[in-house]
């Protein structure tokens, strides 16, 4: 018992150290003006910055030490994700360091896989991972692509959508189903048989739509179906962490505004109607944090699949709803300035609009949760 307590305390201290260094980095290197400047660029982030984050060891956080990473857990990843999201860093940290690294971690070991993982850890590889179908469903059993054996390799067909990052990646990773379960393919950006289009999002980033027609691939990296499902849940939870950071920032900006904006001779934060609405935002923030914290702990504890998926969908449902609610309320409490492009709140509102629906919105994840926790059975515990 005592030993556990000490270990927890140690890891708490480590997490605080990590949070401090992320904070220091973000303050110095990621001012909001930068996020403002980069939106609607193509790509909308800087590869050099992602390389710098790799230099901090962050992109290799979830990658085993044998491949140049740190082999740490999701509590640590959450600290980084939260810090970057709070400053609206457009670098695709979750898509690359969580989803990309996760898919490769989940794949069977091999020279290609190992090289890609080391590349993510050192910042030289930045994959865009395509797996979600064009309907925007979230079903690991049905990745967007199908692959069949050909004379000297594989033929890949299908279409994926909502791929983040949409541009600026160094290579493609495609998840396909085969007769023998899911596999992962790497394809160069210019591969024949791969059509791309960009779909701009509210925050000035873009998602890719990827169509494979007769794409030839030499080598397939086998993925365990269970491991694929786990990686997607992990990505979902980190997406919820991104949203939590947005919620916190929008709420604190609004609180600051209520304290300083004067109307009728008083700060508007002295009006009870606004105080109560601000408190309701606090409640949503705290509920989101509680749900996200439970999900992150379950990932690190290696919870059984059903519980892990339940918690991931629950965290996403709460975070997406709370982020959208907070965005609407923050605009209202700011008044007219809240709908202007020149005010920073709008950057957070637009990022919320982009991140809340990614990998499925609140409604989809409530349904997913419900499917796993039907009424007759013992509920999630």
């Amino acid at each position: 018992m005592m030993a556990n307590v000490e270990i927890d305390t140690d890891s708490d201290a480590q997490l605080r150290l990590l949070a401090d260094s992320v904070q220091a980095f973000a303050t110095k290197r990621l001012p909001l003006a930068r996020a403002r400047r980069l939106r609607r660029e193509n790509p909308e982030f800087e590869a050099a910055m992602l390389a710098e984050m790799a230099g901090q060891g962050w992109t290799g956080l979830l990658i085993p030490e044998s491949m140049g990473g740190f082999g740490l857990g999701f509590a640590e990843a959450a600290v980084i994700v939260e810090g970057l999201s709070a400053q609206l860093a457009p670098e695709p940290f979750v898509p690359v360091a969580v989803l990309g690294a996760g898919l490769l971690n989940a794949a069977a070991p091999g020279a290609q896989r190992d090289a890609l993982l080391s590349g993510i850890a050192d910042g030289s590889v930045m994959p865009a991972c395509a797996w979600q179908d064009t309907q925007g469903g979230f079903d690991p059993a049905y990745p967007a692509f199908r692959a069949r054996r050909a004379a000297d390799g594989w033929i890949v067909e299908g279409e994926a959508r909502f791929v983040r990052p949409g541009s600026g990646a160094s290579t493609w990773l495609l998840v396909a189903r085969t007769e023998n379960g899911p596999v992962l393919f790497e394809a160069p950006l210019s591969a024949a048989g791969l059509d791309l289009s960009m779909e701009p999002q509210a925050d000035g980033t873009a998602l890719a739509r990827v169509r494979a027609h007769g794409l030839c691939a030499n080598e397939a990296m086998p993925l365990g179906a269970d491991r694929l499902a786990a990686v997607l849940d992990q990505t979902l939870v980190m997406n919820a962490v991104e949203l939590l950071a947005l919620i916190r920032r929008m709420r604190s900006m609004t609180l600051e505004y209520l304290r300083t904006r004067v109307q009728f001779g008083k700060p508007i934060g002295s009006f009870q109607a606004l105080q109560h609405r601000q408190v309701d935002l606090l409640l949503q923030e705290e509920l989101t944090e509680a749900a996200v914290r439970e999900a992150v702990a379950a990932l690190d504890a290696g919870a059984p699949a059903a519980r892990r998926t339940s918690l991931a969908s629950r965290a996403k449902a709460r975070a997406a709803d709370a982020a959208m609610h907070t965005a609407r309320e923050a605009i209202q409490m700011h008044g007219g300035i809240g709908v202007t492009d020149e005010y920073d709140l709008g950057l957070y509102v637009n990022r919320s609009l982009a991140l809340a629906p990614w990998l499925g919105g609140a409604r989809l994840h409530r349904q997913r949760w419900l499917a796993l926790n039907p009424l007759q059975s013992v509920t999630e515990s």
Partner: protein
Amino acid sequence: MNATTDWNALSDEDFRLLVRQFFREQYPEHLRYPKTRLRWAQIRDWYLMLSKKGWLAPAWPVEYGGMGLSPAKLMIFTEEGERRGVARAPDMGITMVGPLLIQHGSEAQKAYYLPKILSGEHIWCQGYSEPNAGSDLASLRTEAVLDGEHFVVNGQKTWTTLAQDATHIFLLVRTDKSAKKQEGISFLLADMSTPGIERRPIRNLAGHEEFCECFFHDVRVPRENIVGELNRGWTIAKALLGFERIFLGSPKQSQYAIARLEELIVHRGLTADAAFMDAYARLKLDLLDHMALYERFADQVRRGETLGPDVSMLKIIGTENYQRIAQLMLEAAGSAAGLVGDVELDGESFDWLTSYYNSRPATIYGGANEIQRNILATQLLGLKS
């Protein structure tokens, strides 16, 4: 297992199992999950059994006849009772008067009152609320004027839970009308049989008489019945609100109500109704997130830390979830929603209105949720009024 057992020396798991077994085996089956607060006549035997076992006052120090439980152990004790549907005994003497006297009472007061609470000879009720005061408790007007060796009390208290069954009442009274609102208030103990005290039950929407109004007309209370210093009652009353505040935000009411809702949904075949199920899933996830947040505060209590004003969050979240669950239960009941009590529906019986009625005052008592929001806005967020 005698009165001197050091319960805190047991591991949490062992203690939990012990308590669980006791509540499972000894608590009367017909009194589990009562729909309304039980009257003294119904709960008396259980009260006396707890007393005999030495488990009536879990939070009191052992030297006064309590179990001397640490906050962590007390959480377990309460959780297990809630889990097993154990009703609250008339516990004002145990949770309020006892701790008050132990902290602030004179030796004579402790020696006289504490054993009589434990024996069931004295049943206490709480004289805080007044008409027109509501959550603005400090605006109370019932006054006590010193006349020789007695205070003469005049005024009215209300929302006095189960005053019908009480032998004693503890009162917040105004003893200095010239002082500021929170000052000039004293804490007074009174015997309900004193001439001039009249009690009148208040019937609620569900038809129950859980609360009373109490009237005081020239009631002479011995001077030695004051607790602590004259005009310092408010400070004492506030200090009594300890970590028990966490229980106002317990998810247990919602957990119990949603279990009833789930039975009703399955029975009525509503699982095929996608819109209804989305509404249900929202509430269930609200509950699970509330439980996760509750754990954060429970950990604080277990570590022996003092709860801050942020605990008000739990009360708001919990009681408003509870009301939404009760509301959805009415929707699930359809045309039968207005029928009261155990209602037969396709061969099974359900009771939805009890949750509806019970959930109404939850957002009012213990400081209305609007007051809780004021507390959070001013004390936690630093907004000025």
